[in-house]
């Protein structure tokens, strides 16, 4: 039986694992060579985060599963990433709008997590917050470029925000595991107002009208995913699953 702390840490690991896997898809597909480099760099940072959380999960796990057991040998029903991370990369506007939402969130989240009573989590957060700051500068800059570039870039950006809008709520939903970890887990609901203010501020500056019709989809932390996660995991886990127990 996974403890609340293990569930909590695995959720954070899965968020980053799935997002990194998505960002990796941009390799050799970016709009410029510079973006190929930048996006793979961000993917690397986020993979690094996933590994830190999985490695901690491994320490916490009674079954002593390794980081690779967690990443490569759990099914889509066992993955508990929030849904926003698993959505397909879409076009460049979709990818950058998602990064913007998530980078704004990560800054607040890691800042709060760095005060966790759990020293390992606080330490991971302190490491993540530095790179997350760079990611945020980059994604905000891209939102400016796309909003003020051409009509087409603006149209694509607005469409991306619209597509993502209903997935933001899940970022601020407290899970049962989190509610049992007072002082250890971040209280997500506390971050919502600041996140919304930050999104509103940049949107207002760029005359971006945020969607007026709200909707929400949740379920990731319960293992209830979109249909996109299964194929991603099937591809990612193929080799590890074909050769159980093999060393690479």
């Amino acid at each position: 039986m996974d403890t609340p702390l293990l569930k909590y840490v695995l959720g954070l690991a899965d968020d980053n694992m799935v997002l990194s896997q998505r960002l990796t898809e941009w390799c050799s597909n970016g709009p410029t060579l510079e973006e190929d480099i930048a996006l793979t760099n961000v993917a690397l940072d986020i993979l690094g985060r996933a590994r830190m959380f999985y490695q901690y999960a491994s320490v916490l796990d009674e079954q002593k599963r390794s980081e690779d057991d967690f990443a490569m040998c759990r099914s889509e029903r066992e993955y508990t990433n929030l849904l926003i991370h698993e959505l397909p990369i879409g076009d460049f506007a979709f990818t950058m709008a998602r990064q913007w939402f998530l980078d704004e969130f990560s800054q607040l989240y890691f800042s709060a997590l760095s005060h966790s009573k759990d020293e390992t989590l606080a330490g991971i957060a302190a490491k993540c917050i530095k790179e997350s700051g760079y990611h945020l500068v980059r994604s905000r800059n891209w939102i400016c470029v796309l909003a003020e570039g051409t009509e087409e870039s603006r149209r694509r950006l607005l469409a991306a925000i619209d597509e993502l809008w209903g997935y933001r709520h899940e970022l601020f939903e407290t899970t049962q595991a989190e509610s049992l970890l007072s002082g250890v887990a971040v209280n997500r609901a506390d971050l919502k107002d600041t996140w919304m203010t930050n999104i509103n501020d940049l949107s207002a500056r760029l005359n971006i009208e945020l969607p007026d019709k709200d909707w929400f989809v949740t379920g990731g932390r319960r293992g209830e995913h979109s249909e996109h996660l299964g194929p991603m995991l099937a591809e990612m886990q193929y080799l590890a699953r074909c050769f159980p127990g093999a060393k690479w």
Partner: protein
Amino acid sequence: MTKAECQIEQQLLEQFEAKIAADDKIEPKDWMPEAYRANLIRQMSQHAHSEVIGMQPEGNWLSRAPNLHRKMVLLAKVQDEAGHGLYLYSATETLGITRDEMVTAMHQQRAKYASIFNYPTLTWADIGAIGWLVDGAAIVNQISLQLTSYGPYSRAMIKICKEESFHQRQGYNILIKLCEGSEEQKAMAQDALNRWWWPSLMMFGPHDRESAHSQRSMGWKIKRKSNDDLRQKFVDQTVPQAEFLGLKIPDSDLAWNAQRGHYDFGDIDWREFERVINGNGPCNRERIRHHKRAQDEGAWVRQAMAAYDIKQAGQRVA
């Protein structure tokens, strides 16, 4: 050209040749013969395109790397290759050509990339083989190019060689693990060596006597060692590495020649080389199509960047 102009050009040529003879570097603002410039553009842009196109076969395994450590290392490696491409495009731009022009030349097949990337990466062992053999062959070539006569190219090679040696080790390390593993894993490693060995030898180009650009490039010290010398060096250093892995190099003529102090090896199938370089490899069309598609799909992003820059500049002036 007037007589006076001819005399000036003759003087410039003599100064240029004196610099080459003294092993001084030629720098972007220095006078250089047009053929030297054209030769460098051909070689350096081909090198840059190879780094960029090489991202495709290796990127093919990013989503399927067998564990998180390997995924991270491969991601960092492919990112390095993109960085090399960028660095080399920039170095080539010092010769008065734009990156766009170079990329268009590749799309129109006026410029080449390393033909070996027209082969597919079919198994995880291929990622090991690319690091070990393809990067290994590239390093042998690039070490000699650290002494090339064009300053920006030489400096690029010094920087790039440092990273490439890591790449080679990561590839070899992948194969060590496979060869320590199950029979199936070992068979995967042998299969990769079988498919990548000969194309790796072809990377050094035709025999010296048949190489179209070699003689002139050697005279100008763009190239510092001949194709055949570099190939021999690669074979000599790689055979013991294969032995350590317990893998068999697919060449029945391979044998140590004590008299020469080198390995003898079999004839390269140059028809295969010609076939692939001329567009008939398994992935030629796919590699260019992929690159063009990414470029086409990103066109609106580049247009947005350009429009945004103009608006920002306008605001600064206002």
